[in-house]
């Protein structure tokens, strides 16, 4: 018992930076994970990845002008993310090009631009910071930002839930009964950007998308209903954060990758043993029922 306490609880009791990291990670999972579920269901899993790259040049401009400061880098990231989301969305709606192609084009341009801008001022250490985050160095401002983003995300999801579901399940139906389709699509992309920007404070641009997508993908192996899917994704996200922080603390490993790898392990296990995973679907009895 004693050693379990020492291993699991003590780090969070004794060190304030661990408490802050835990709070930040949990707040982030609350918003990011359900967003990830909707991204996955819309077959936009890779869009999250693309958007994570897209916010880089904005954050980099903030960094270039003000150094490693939360507010300018956040605003820069938001602006870049929204520009890319709107741009890709507009290209796919106004031209024959599909959204995946336009998204890829925009994010590649963005990523190159971002790396270029960071390299104009910073060292490779700074670049690593922007890319891989600092969950162990969250200050009050960052925590408030992440908390605010979670609240905005959860409230928006609650209000627009019915429209979001309809837009995923049967977009033409939504268009025939309501004009909410396009605004809800852009609201959703906005929430993706917002959560990635929140995530990049804690985990960095590259790993923020991991906390968004891995819990969602893992949860899909366990349930066929939407609401449990979102709740399970959040639970997996929070558990991964706790596990990742502990591993990072005890083994002196970088915290961001430890969190994402924890989520990765949950994903792999779910894929193998989840009710919709490999083993249960392969091991069904060969006999069949009469009806």
């Amino acid at each position, binding site marked *: 018992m004693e050693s379990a306490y020492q291993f699991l609880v003590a780090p969070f009791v004794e060190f304030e930076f661990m408490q802050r990291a835990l709070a930040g990670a949990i707040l982030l999972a609350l918003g990011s994970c359900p967003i990830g579920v909707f991204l996955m*269901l819309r077959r936009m899993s890779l869009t999250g990845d693309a958007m994570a790259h897209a916010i880089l040049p904005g954050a980099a401009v903030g960094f270039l002008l003000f150094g490693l400061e939360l507010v300018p880098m956040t605003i820069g990231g938001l602006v870049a993310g929204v520009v890319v989301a709107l741009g890709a969305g507009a290209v796919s709606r106004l031209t024959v090009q599909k959204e995946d192609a336009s998204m890829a084009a925009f994010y590649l341009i963005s990523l190159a631009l971002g790396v270029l801008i960071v390299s104009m001022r910073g060292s490779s250490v700074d670049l690593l910071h922007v890319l891989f985050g600092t969950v162990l160095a969250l200050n009050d401002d960052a925590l408030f930002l992440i908390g605010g983003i979670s609240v905005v995300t959860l409230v928006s999801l609650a*209000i*627009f839930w*019915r*429209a979001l*579901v*309809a837009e*995923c*399940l*049967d*977009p*033409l*139906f939504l*268009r*025939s*009964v*309501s004009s*909410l389709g396009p605004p809800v699509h852009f609201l959703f992309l906005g929430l993706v950007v917002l959560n990635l920007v929140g995530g990049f404070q804690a985990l960095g641009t590259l790993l923020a998308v991991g906390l968004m997508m891995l819990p969602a993908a893992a949860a899909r192996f366990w*349930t*066929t*209903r*939407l609401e449990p*899917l979102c709740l399970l994704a959040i639970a997996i996200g929070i558990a991964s954060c706790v596990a990742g922080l502990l591993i990072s603390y005890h083994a002196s490993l970088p915290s961001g990758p430890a969190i994402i790898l924890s989520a990765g392990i949950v994903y792999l296990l779910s894929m193998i043993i989840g009710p919709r995973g490999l083993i249960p679907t392969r091991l069904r009895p060969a006999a069949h029922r009469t009806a």
Partner: protein
Amino acid sequence: MSDAAITFDNLTLGYNSHPAVHHLSGTVTRGALTAVVGANGSGKSTLMKGIAGILKPMAGAVQVNNKARMAYLPQGTELDRSFPARVIDLVSMGLWPRRGLLGRYSRSDWQKVEAAIAAVGLVGFEARSLDTLSGGQLQRALFARVVLQDAELILLDEPFNAVDQRTIADLLALMQHWHREHRTVLVVVHDHDLVRQHLPEALLLARRPIAWGQSAVVLNSENLAKARHFDEAWDENAPWCAPGEHAHDHVHDAPHAHVHHDHGHHEHGHHDLHKGAA
């Protein structure tokens, strides 16, 4: 209160400057049960999209009497069957016109959902997930959603595709029930015999309107021959359609259709062909 559920005024719909429905005028009377027939590429689905407001007209106009009370069931639907939803989730989407984004579903709403599911013969399927349904079962569920929408105007785009005889009979009975309730129904169908036997009126399209009226008359051999001879391919060098350039084509047997083929004229009744339904 006008007697027209839909009014087409020299309506042209299409894509990339090419017309798919060319100069359609006329009215669909309230309570009519009309089949929309024609070959592949003749503009049937395009017309449905135009009426539903999903495709904007290239020229002319389409007026729907009460847009808020319209139900549109697209062809094959863009429905994502892998989405984690049950039959009851899909059907209850039909409550949207009544409850919108935020309205709570009341006990009586859920009773209506149950009744709609029963009306299409899917009792017992409520909790089945969509990816386990057959094509016919899914079509029944979509019809249940239409039932729930309680629409005045119902647009059905090829609802009988890949659906077995028994399901067709059931869905057809439902349509006739809607007809008796004086709802206006437009349905895209390929089976001419089915149209002759069960659907009182028909609109025959071949990119342009060929005939409109009593289905037995519309689907006569002369009209069908005419409908077969249209060019399915677009002509990239086709001249621009300008007022006053076209020869007059006569449309037969159109009780409430006036089909303009002199593209400049907008006055109603100018070339109307009021033979009247028997």
